[in-house]
């Protein structure tokens, strides 16, 4: 592609995965205990999308990356101190109380609106990136909903690989069961890609990149107005995924026997 892609990456923030996540009720909506106080990171699935976007942009001249994020802005600012060093992008912040329990429809709506209002965004070159899942509650539908709101019908979820073919069409590997991939060819943008883990390592921090990004990030954060989210979801109960550990030392058992026992143990859940 001669003049590159316009890649919009949608990424929320989530508590650092090492933190203790304890759901509590805040009014009628659940929340995580002390979530505002805990260090946050860019949602890891979406972060992979960002690294893939930066890599693609670096190899397709004329491309540009936007990072659209709905989050409490002061927390987003802290996260940017790290993320802004990893790739060149322009931040489109939305100051909203988005967290793992927010209604995915409302989140998708404000994200779609924000993308819609990015000036100079060329729909014919648009690749809408995000995570197919989230390290928060993971509704798993947000990217699809944004795509629908923006009327982009070519959608791929669980993407691990994205290749631009010589004719400009896109080859996309979507993760399916059994460690296998579904390979599709898409004629070109606009398209939605919900990334799984991709293939790229987390880029090292580079404060030079960070400083360059910050010139636009800080004013954008300062300008952003607080937005509320409608909540149409009612939660009856929430709990963090349970971790179980049962250790036993077994000898003289075949791999099949062990596998069968593991299967039985998993199916108890």
């Amino acid at each position, binding site marked *: 592609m001669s003049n590159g892609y316009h890649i919009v990456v949608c990424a929320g923030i989530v508590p650092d995965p090492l933190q203790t996540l304890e759901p*509590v009720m805040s009014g009628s909506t*659940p929340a995580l205990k*002390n979530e505002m106080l*805990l260090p946050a990171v860019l949602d890891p699935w979406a972060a992979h999308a960002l690294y893939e976007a930066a890599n693609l942009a670096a190899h397709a001249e004329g491309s540009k990356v936007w990072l659209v994020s709905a989050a409490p802005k002061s927390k987003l600012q802290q996260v940017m*101190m790290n993320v802004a060093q990893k790739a060149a992008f322009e931040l489109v912040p939305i100051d909203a109380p988005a967290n793992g329990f927010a209604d995915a429809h409302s989140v998708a709506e404000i994200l779609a609106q924000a993308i819609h209002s990015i000036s100079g965004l060329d729909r014919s070159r648009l690749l809408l990136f995000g995570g197919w899942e989230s390290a928060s509650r993971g509704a798993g539908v947000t990217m699809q909903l944004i795509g629908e709101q923006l009327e982009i019908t070519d959608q791929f979820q669980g993407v691990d690989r994205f290749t631009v073919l010589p004719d400009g069409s896109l080859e996309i590997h979507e993760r399916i069961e059994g460690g296998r991939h579904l390979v599709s060819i898409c004629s070109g943008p606009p398209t939605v890609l919900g990334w799984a883990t991709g293939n790229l390592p987390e880029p*090292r921090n580079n404060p030079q990149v960070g*400083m360059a990004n*910050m010139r636009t990030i800080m004013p954008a954060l300062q300008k952003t107005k607080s937005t509320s989210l409608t909540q149409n979801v009612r939660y009856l*109960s929430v709990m963090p995924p349970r971790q179980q550990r049962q250790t036993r030392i077994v000898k003289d058992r075949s791999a099949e026997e062990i596998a069968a026992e593991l299967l039985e143990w998993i199916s108890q859940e």
Partner: protein
Amino acid sequence: MATASAVERETLRALPSDASRQVQWGFADRYDLQLLVQSSRAVARGPVARLVAGGGRNSHEWTEAKAALLEAFDQAGITAVFMEPEEGGLFAGPKNFALALIAFELAWVDGGAATASLAGCLALAPIHERGTEEQKQHYMKLAAPTTPGEDRKPWRGAFCLTEPIPYVGVDTGMLNGKIRIVEWKTGEEPILQVEKRGRFITNIGFANFVTTAVDSDDERIKGSCMVILEEADPGIFDRGTPTRKMVHQLSSTGDPIFNLRVPASRIVGGYDVKDGVLIPRYSHSEVIEAVFRRTRVTVGVMTTAKLLSAVEPIIRYQRGRFRGADTATPGSVRYELGLQAREDALHRLVDLWATGEASASLGFAAARVFDELDPLEKEVEKLYAERGISGGKAKAKFLRGVADEAVTLMQLPRDDARRSTLLSDLRLRFVALDSLADVLCPAAKLWNTGWGAQMMREAVSLMGGYGITEDCPGFLGNKWMDAQLEATYEGPEAVQRRQLSVTMTNPVFLAQFREWIREMREVASEHPGTGACALATAMKLWLWTLDHLQHSKDADGGRLYQSARQGVTFPLADALCWLVAARCQIVDVLRLEKSGANDASLAEGLPGLVKFMTDLCNVQSARASGEVARICAELVFGYDRHPAWDEDGKRACWHEDELDALENLMPGINSYAIDVIAGDGSHPAKAGPCVNCAGASRFLSLHAKLDGCLTGSRLAKDRAADAVSKMMIPEALDYPA
């Protein structure tokens, strides 16, 4: 599932966030520094931690794995921080605070990694502070990290001052390194022969250049200087064998030998020629003074990081100590609190945390002061040049000219109109700030590392046997030992005490100190829980003691406050450090309370955080006051001779028969008299008659007042302990152990 109301109790809820530290330590408006913190942290908790966990500290040699860290530093922007943008640096302006933050982040995981990075800056510092423009440009560019596509290896440097025994150590004047002129053709640059042996020189295993201190061994060279040596210079550049050190093993240390020919243009800061004599523009001591007064702050902050990094692993250890035992079922005190059910375990942790906070506040305050001082110093240098003032003595005289006005400035109320007039005088502003820097730097180096090392031992203790194993999470055993090096290199404690014993008597500083007393009282009236009132009283006690010692003699008529009397001056310097650190801690917590409220990411949980931090201030102020009271009492009374049961002593006592006679006139007098000589001449069983404290009544009343000021400090400790037992911590440490 708990309800939110249970969460809303106003106590510390989680470990202080980055946002709160940015406000507390004064860099909330510096995103360049915030970026740098994140990139340094990623290196520290990534490659550095992996290397330590993988046993990288178990060799004295400079290994490839250790060398790889230097590249990681380059890529993370750490190496470039020391440089100006035109030299390949990250940002313009003073770098002290930035370097302190980097040291903090690296030493959070490993002190040796911090040293390896900072020793490069130390090597460049003589050139940066006193080098000629050409030297600066040349070496900064060589040392700047490469940019993508550039085919060059960045140069690394070492700073070589210390010499094999019996030469340079604490005493930097005992130079054995020599410099001679071996060739001096008319109209050309003289060629010098430099002979130097170094001891314990950091970075020597790989340094491409060395800045070294040498003395003249030639009547055609005047005095000492620093010279730059390069590995390719003709002659011997022998790196020596690696030092078998038990600390900071991720840095390279060795005892090099140099015997090299270099052009005279390598003299740091250049030289003049007068009557056929080469006169270096700066003596080695002038250069190292300019260097160390900055770099020592950074070292102080390294120990700080160790203390604060110990909090999380200790809490996790304490809480999980009994989990898994049959008797520790979920929900039981044993399961939920573990060792945190024990008061002493919590109290000691609170002490450790409070020390860490005070240490951070002092270290970062010092770094910020130097950032403020740097541009002023440059302006003053220009003034010297304009007025043709050169040489240490002439410069000092020039500055002394405004000392009285600086004292006046300190004493003026904050809203006094005369302040702005006085502050418009550059020289005066410089003198005022310089007097503060002169105290804060040695205080941060001395107290943070010295007392920090003691408290690291406490941290190790709290982990039990685990603490002194390689498996201890957070590498606490290593950190304990590493702290001892931080107390030693770049001037051991004696050097800092010696400096403080001079700078703390500067009238300009003392005027500022008096202002602090007023400030602390004011703080106390608005924030009574901070311990500021006790601190103000302790400050008064210290001031009284200093004045007393400066004007008193010992029992044999010897002057008490004088440089040779380190038994007097050094403890008083220690006492001052406690006060200065506790004050900085309070000032930072007040900033957190005031500015934190405007920060949305801090607003939630801020009251609890401030309450906890306030309690830590109170704990620390009480401890500081106690230390000051103990030191001052020893100094005030310790140099008087104790009365004995000799003729003089007995004369001052009551005699039994006198008392009996008086009892008829004043019934009950017998029970008031303490020192009574019996009819057979025997005396009470003690060292001598009690001391008459004439002349020290002001001291005694201040001391008694101070005791009372400690009221409530243990309640603050109890509250802090309770908070520590309830706060959330992450599930696991964010770096391997």
